[in-house]
């Protein structure tokens, strides 16, 4: 069943090469997304445990991630249909096929229960996302793609080296040399600690590069800035999530090996550092898509910070994973609409979005409030949980710095967002023929409703699943 879920998008991706019409082809995307979502529902409901030696399997952790990713992709795919139709002259064959392949590989990365398989899947995600970034086929997007690929490849190479180290650590421990995660976790107490630590550094830096933690984040503003907004949403919500999942798996192994203090302090440090770097770049940011990229860096920092703090922070971090992904969906897609209408992503050229595009503009503003942690939107609760975990752990400086960074980010981000949203639209924008339509707006509304829902009502099954996942990571079932 899990395999089918991976194969369906792949098949549809192949089909994309056969469909001739540039306008009809995008329908494959919602189709694939819906199929995937249905498949996800089925596998989540079946709730099959991980079988011994299976390459794919669902444990408490990746169940949460899978459900979230499937939903994210479905909504983005609906948007993608609307977006691609707006650009009939841009060939979308490769784009459609790559998007579906990206989904397949992402699913594989999430479901993989084997260290090597997961690595291969994440690598494939990177590769399949290259054509997505290059959709606009101009020098800037080419540069962005090049940087994304090379930096991403170096990261993934480091992750491979880290995987070797981890394998060696098992080898040195004289254990069975299985690289299945359940086996690794079980055998973890016997792993060689020096190798394990080195492995974790390499894996953290490697997958951290994919995640976009500072200072390995440098590809992010370029890639998110130049790619279509929907790709930004998928990368910020999807690929980074897969990379984070990988880090969580190794964190779990460290926990199981009782050698987690170092990993924790590393995560806290890099988490706060990411927030600080993002804050620096968000002050007076004149490009609103790059701003979103830095916001993504910031939130990746919050995610690893939550894990590093531990305790309730892990739960907060997992909740934030979902909150952030969904909110990024709102922001990137709304930014894409604004970009489409104004033809520029510089603040100088864009103003009065809420007058020119009342729905998109309002959604963008709401998304901004959500991502900066305003109650009653979801991200507030996850950030508060992390903060409280820091306070409860007696890490007052961490908590203080965390809040300070949230404030600086807010100050920076709000001036950019307000400049975009408020004021009088330019004449050029008034003349633009872009109008909000169902496909370009409905997914954003759904995203925002979900973010709001997570702020006013975390469904108990989700809450249970998150607690289970947190318990799974912390090794206390």
């Amino acid at each position, binding site marked *: 069943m899990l395999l089918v879920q991976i194969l369906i998008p792949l098949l549809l991706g192949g089909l994309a090469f056969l469909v001739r019409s540039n306008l009809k082809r995008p329908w494959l995307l919602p189709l694939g997304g819906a199929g995937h979502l249905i498949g996800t529902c089925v596998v989540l409901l079946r709730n099959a445990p991980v079988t011994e030696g299976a390459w794919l399997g669902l444990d408490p952790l990746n169940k949460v991630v899978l459900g979230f990713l499937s939903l994210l992709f479905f909504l983005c795919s609906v948007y993608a249909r609307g977006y691609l139709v707006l650009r009939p002259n841009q060939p979308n064959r490769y784009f459609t096929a790559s998007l579906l392949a990206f989904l397949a590989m992402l699913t594989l990365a999430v479901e993989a229960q084997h260290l*090597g398989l997961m*690595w*291969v899947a994440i*690598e*494939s995600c990177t*590769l399949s996302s*290259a054509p997505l970034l*290059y959709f606009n086929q101009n*020098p*800037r997007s*080419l*540069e*962005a*793609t*090049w*940087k994304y*690929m*090379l930096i991403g*490849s*170096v990261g*993934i*190479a480091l992750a*491979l*080296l880290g*995987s*070797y*180290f981890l*394998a*060696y650590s098992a*080898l*040195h421990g004289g254990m069975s*040399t299985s*690289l299945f995660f359940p086996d690794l976790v079980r055998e973890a107490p016997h792993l*060689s600690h*020096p*190798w394990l630590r*080195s492995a974790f550094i390499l894996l953290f830096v490697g997958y951290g590069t994919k995640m976009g933690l500072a200072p390995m984040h440098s590809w992010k*503003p*370029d890639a998110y*800035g*130049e790619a279509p907004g929907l790709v930004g949403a998928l990368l910020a919500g999807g690929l980074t999530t897969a990379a984070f999942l990988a880090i969580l798996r190794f964190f779990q192994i460290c926990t199981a090996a009782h050698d987690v203090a170092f990993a924790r302090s590393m995560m806290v440090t890099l988490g706060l550092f990411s927030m600080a770097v993002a804050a620096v*770049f968000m002050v007076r940011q004149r490009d609103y898509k790059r701003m979103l990229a830095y916001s993504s860096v910031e939130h990746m920092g919050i995610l690893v910070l939550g894990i590093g703090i531990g305790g309730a922070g892990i739960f907060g971090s997992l909740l934030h994973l979902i909150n952030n992904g969904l909110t990024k969906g709102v922001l990137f897609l709304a930014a894409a609409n604004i970009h489409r209408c104004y033809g520029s992503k510089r603040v100088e050229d864009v103003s009065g979005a809420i007058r020119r595009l009342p729905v998109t503009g309002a959604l963008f503003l709401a998304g901004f409030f959500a991502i900066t942690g305003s109650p009653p939107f979801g991200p507030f609760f996850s950030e508060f949980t992390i903060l409280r975990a820091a306070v409860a752990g007696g890490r007052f400086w961490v908590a203080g710095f965390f809040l300070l960074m949230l404030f600086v980010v807010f100050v920076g981000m709000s001036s950019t967002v307000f400049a975009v949203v408020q004021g009088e639209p330019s004449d050029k924008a008034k003349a633009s023929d872009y109008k909000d339509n169902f496909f370009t707006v409905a997914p954003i509304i759904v995203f925002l409703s979900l973010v709001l829902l997570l702020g006013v009502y975390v469904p108990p099954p989700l809450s249970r699943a998150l607690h289970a996942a947190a318990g799974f990571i912390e090794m206390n079932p």
Partner: protein
Amino acid sequence: MHNLIGPLLVVVLLFNLFLLGTSRLQAVVNASAAQGVVLGILTLCVHEGFSTWMVLITIGTILVKGVLIPGMLLRAIRDAAIRREIEPFIGFLPCLLLGALGTGASLVFARTLPLAKEHVGSLLVPAAMATVWTGFLVLTTRRKAINQVVGYLILENGIYIMGLTLLHAMPFMVEMGVLLDLFVGIFVMGIILNHIRREFSSLDTAHLSALKE
């Protein structure tokens, strides 16, 4: 066969230094190709006994690392009509020194890690580290996009060497290294490089710095 591992690794390290010290692009690509061939032979040496699977891997490694990718790079060099890395960010001599220093540091670093008994005294781990270091040096100091690709190849050769330590225990890991080469080779080098050349009619990364704050 086992006796050959040490000398072969020394050859790899020498290639590293050569790569750091030379400016001619063709020579750089050739050296990386040669390093790839050496790695192929190394695979065969590390493996005890003889199996078809091993031979296939060896041949695959040699083909990808020694022929396919360098061939593509050479073609790109010819098409773009560039010959030399003119002004690296750090001069060739300091680069060489840094490379040597890094090799030394790798030896020290490898000491801090406990080795499995079959690898005690082997150069595999330090050589891997030193090669990764070299790869990074090339990546961060060279201006030409081709050179960066070569740097990445070297980085990844280092990882391949690390993978050799696991050849017995987990054969699958090594294949993964080859896979990486294949995919990245085809995508990054082939397509993007080609696009870059067409778009900017140059392979100088100076053209690729429009996106910044």
